[in-house]
Structures are given as C-alpha cells and as structure tokens.
C-alpha cells in the first residue's frame, strides 16, 4: 500500500503479443511520483507498444497496469485519459484542420462539464466555461511558446512547433503522468535544449514524465532513471550513469554506435 502512493505507475509482467511476435515481453517497472523516467531501446524494441498498452490503445496480452494505486489494465483510452495519463505520439497526431487553440481545447474536453443541452442553448455557465477554457488553453500555448499561432491550423505549424502543440494538448488534460514518445526526434541541438527546459518546467508543475527517447544526450540530461528494452524484454534499469556502463545495453543498443 505505501508503494502505491509513492509509485504513480506500476507495470507488472506486462506482455503484448501480435500473433507470433512478442512486442513486449514480461516487463515490470515502476515510476515514482515526480520523476523523469526514460524508456530507451533500439528500433522495434517495443517501446511504443508499451505506451499503447498503458494508454489503453492496446489491451495487454498478460500482466497488469496499475496507475495511481488503481488497476487500469484493459481500460479504454478515454478512461485512462480521464484518470490522468496523457501522451504524445511518435509520429505527431494533431487535429490537422483545427486551430492550435482548438487542439488544446480538445485536450481540455475531459475536464469540462458542458452537456449537449448546455451547448445547444449556450447557457450562461456553458459560456463561462468556454471562456475559462479558452484562457487556460492560451496559457498552455504560451507555456510551450506557440501562443502567437493560436489561430492557425495545426497542420500549418513548423515541425518543432507541432511537437510543442502536442505537448500543450496533452497537458490540457491535467495529467498526473505525461508520456512523451520521442519528443526530440528530428530536433536541432538548440531545439533539444529547449525541449529539456520544457520538460523541467512540466516537472515543476508536479507532473511525472515518462519518456521514450533515442537521443542519449537528452535522456542522460533529464531523466533520473532509465529502463532499457530490447526485443520486448527489459535488459537494464537504473540511473543513467549505471545504465550507460551496462554491458548488455552496450551490446544491444549503444554497441552499434560505439
């Protein structure tokens, strides 16, 4: 019991099979409240699949997902989001033909109360809620630094801005845990530095961050603990310095570049 309050997410023997392929193989890990936790591993290791199992896009073949002391194994994505897990996607999935402001306001959806009738007749409290949500959304756009694009279609943003917008949209759901799937992919070194600052800012809002990242500088720079996946299996876990020295990891992952 004391564990569940300290750990925001616990995966126990999580397994996901696609036909014969075991994409995630009996992985157990736990993420502490308020830390930055990184998941690394070579291409196809099963990192995104693990995210998808946590967020309800996939149902695990076996194992348990416990979030904030609550078993969410097999929950629907919208239920998971409501409970407080938000995510970004490896290949950006914004609402292309909606404005940036609307993208973020969609993120706010789950914390809004207006029902069909309220909206249909624009009742006063619905109006007030809309105003409030618009302010909150603008605040988030400012937080990630793209507020001046609020009225542009999401698809018209530059690549780096789209990644930021995705983060803003995820933050709008008021998450306790934020999953970032390769947030720095395709970034310039300068953008990577900015991203690391942004992650720290997110952390200071009391949100735990769980990220997948290929760039070792980013991973080493911001994360407190790392888990390494290879062929779906967890092959190492620990603080960055230790993991970096781990023989198995060097073989499986760093070995290629070393």
């Amino acid at each position, binding site marked *: 019991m004391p564990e569940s309050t300290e750990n925001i997410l616990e995966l126990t023997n999580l397994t996901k099979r696609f036909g014969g392929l075991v994409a995630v193989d009996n992985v157990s890990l736990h993420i502490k409240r308020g830390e930055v936790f990184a998941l690394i591993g070579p291409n196809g290791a099963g990192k995104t699949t693990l995210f998808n199992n946590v967020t309800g896009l996939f149902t695990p073949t076996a194992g348990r997902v416990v979030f904030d002391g609550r078993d969410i194994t097999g929950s629907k*994505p*919208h239920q998971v*989001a409501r409970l407080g897990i938000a995510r970004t996607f490896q290949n950006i999935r914004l609402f*292309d*033909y909606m404005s940036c*402001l609307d993208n973020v306001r*969609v993120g706010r959806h789950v914390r809004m109360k207006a029902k069909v009738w309220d909206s*249909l007749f624009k009742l006063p409290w619905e109006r007030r809620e809309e105003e409030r949500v618009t302010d909150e959304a603008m605040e988030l756009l400012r937080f990630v630094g793209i507020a001046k694009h*609020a009225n542009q*279609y999401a698809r018209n943003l530059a690549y780096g801005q789209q990644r930021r917008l995705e983060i803003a949209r995820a933050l709008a759901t008021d998450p306790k845990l934020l999953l970032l799937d390769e947030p720095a992919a395709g970034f310039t070194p300068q953008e990577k530095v900015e991203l690391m600052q942004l992650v720290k800012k997110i952390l200071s809002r009391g949100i735990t961050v769980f990220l997948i990242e290929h760039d070792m500088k980013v991973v080493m720079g911001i994360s407190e603990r790392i888990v390494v996946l290879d062929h779906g299996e967890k092959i190492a876990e620990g603080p960055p310095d230790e993991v970096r020295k781990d023989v198995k990891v060097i073989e499986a992952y760093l070995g290629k570049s070393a």
Partner: protein
Amino acid sequence: MSNAAKARPTLRDRLNIRERIRDRDTAVYGILIIVAVLFPLVTVYATGGTALVSHATRAGYWVLLAIGLNVVVGFAGLLDLGYAAFFAIGAYTYALLASPQLASSPAHHAVHINFWILIFGSMLMAALFGAILGFPTLRLRGDYLAIVTLGFGEIVPQLFYNFDQWTGGINAVGLIDQPLLPAWIQGPWSGDGDFKIVSPFSFNTDPVAFYVLVCFLIAIAVILVTNLYRSRLGRAWMAIREDEVAAAAMGINTVTTKLLAFGIGASFSGFAGAYYAADVALVSPDNFLFIVSITVLVMVVLGGMGNITGVIVGALVMYYLVFYLIPGLPENATSLASSIGLGSLNQSSGDWPGLGEETQRLNFIIYGGILVGMMLLRPQGLLPSRVREQELKHAAVLEEASAVEEGARA
C-alpha cells in the same frame, strides 16, 4: 493590459460592424437574410403568383437536411449514405399520425396529432432510429459505416413499401394535415377580422406561410448547430474526424460522441421529414430513395463540408440546379430556339426528337458534368471552412497579439 483597452468602448466598437462584415460567414448570413426577406416580396410582385415561393419553400427543407447531414459528415466525419432513411422515418411518422391513413389500416382509427407536437415527435423518432442503427455500427471503421447506412437507406423505403397495410405502400399516404397556427398568431391582425396588418396568412391557402415557417426553422437550426459547433461537443466531433485515436487518447469517448452526431443528424432529417410531409401532403416511399441521400451529400460536400454557411449555399445552389435549372432547360431551349428563328428545331423529325426532348435527354450529362466540374474546380467546396475569425477577437488571443507586438517594439 493597456489603458486604451480599459477605456469604455464606444457603441460602434462594441458592435464591431466593420469587422463582422469582413468576416465571410457573417457576410453570407447577412446576404441570406436579406434575400430571404426580399424573395417572396419580389417574386410575388414580379410574377403575380407564388410558384417561386413554393420552390423556395422546398429548397428550405433541403437546407434543413443539409445542415443536419453536415453535423454527421462535416463535423464528425462519419460518411452517411442513407440519410434519406431518417427523412422517410420523420415524414412517415407525421404522415401516419396526422392523416386519415390509419383508418384504413388494421388499426381502424385515424389519428390526427397537432403538427407542432408531431414535428418534435418525428424528430425524436428519427433520432431513436439513428441511435438504434448507430449503436452497434458506429464502432466500425469509417467506410464500413458508410455501407451500413447505405444498406439502411435501402431497407427503410422498401419497408414502407412492403407494409402497405399500414402505409398504403406504393399508393402513398395522402390528405396529410396542414399545420394550424396557434390562435394567438391567428388573431385579428392575421386578416380575418377588421384589423389587418398582413394579408390572410394560413397554411391551407397561402404558400408564403410555409415559406415563413421554413425560414424560421432554418434560423433556429442554424443557431443551434452553430452553438454546438462552438462547444465542447463540436470540438470533440472535429477531433474524431481528424484523428480518432488521438481524440480517444485526449479523453473523448468516441462511441458516445459519434452516436450523438448520428442521432442529432438523424433528428434534423426527421424534423425536415415532418415538415416535408405537411408541405406536400402526400408521402410515398419513392420520395426517399438513395438519390435523395446522395443529393444531400452532394449539397454538403459541394458547399464546403463542416462550414454551415457553405452548406446552406451548397444546398441552395444544388436545389436550383437539380430542381429548377436543369428540369427547366428543355422549355427554355425550346422558347429560345423559337425566339431566334430556329423554331423548326423544336419539331421532331426522323431521328431528331425535337430540341426540347433532346435537351431533356442531356439532363443527366449536364448534372453529372456539373458535379465533376465543380469538384475538380473546388475540391474543398464553394465556401470551405476556415479557422473562425471570431476567435481572433477573444480577449486572451488579443492580449497575446498585443504582447507579441510589444515584444517586437521593445
């Protein structure tokens, strides 16, 4: 915040008239309202009859249908190819419960429920069927839904046709009741008494009454749908349209949200159906075939999916083409030929069926050609949806813009 912004805005600033006219949608609404008001005055004055007003009235229920389908297709991105089924359900609900029809059915009792009640009954009935159909099928992948709705659209008119004991089948339901205005509208000023403000205004004798009614219904529909569009639900629909997986990951219950779009779209169709039944007073299964669903879909896509003004304009343009311009072509061609001295073309001779008949035969080609041509020229529709300009005026956004300006100055 700067001092200028704190100063009390003048009335002109507050109304923002210039800005509003610059906004495309507001301009279109303005034009539509003016045209709607002037249309009966001008046509009745010019032609001395109300035939054109009746046409406009019929265009009106297509507008209602298009506004409703736009919720399903344009907002939520669900392709519905059987929209006419809900139209049929609405029309038959009204037709059966407000006509002598049921007297000759196994029920042996005619039912005559008041139009103003039944129009909501029809709406609910259609929404109910929308929910029944949508519930098991809305989790299907996009195009499978299109096919299910297509199948539903084929089944429903056939059922009305088959259960002829109740519906009269191919013989149609006739003698459908006309709406009665509430007494307080039919007061002395309606022309029956001494105190005449307007000429007699009754649904039995005056097509203008139906015209006014449909304009009101459209206005209400536009307001309600616009409200939805700019709400939590409207954004959820669009999010699903853009990316269902991402929408779900943002906490949107995609099934119930889609079900709502489906049900609301269907209720519009049912609403329009009841109105249609009251207007034409004769309802047969043939009025609700696949072609009707397709025509409404074309109105929506051609007008500019997702954009309410676009959809209204699309519906009007398509109505004009399909029900006025193209059917009128043979006659126009014939009289044109006569007036420029080519009257001989109008006679049929040998293989030549006569100009009128020949033009008639071209109708399909013209219609098809127009559809292809318009789509190629404007794949996004006549008035594609854009980021709402109004949003720009929101305080928080304005503030941001001024902050950016200040930053630039500093």
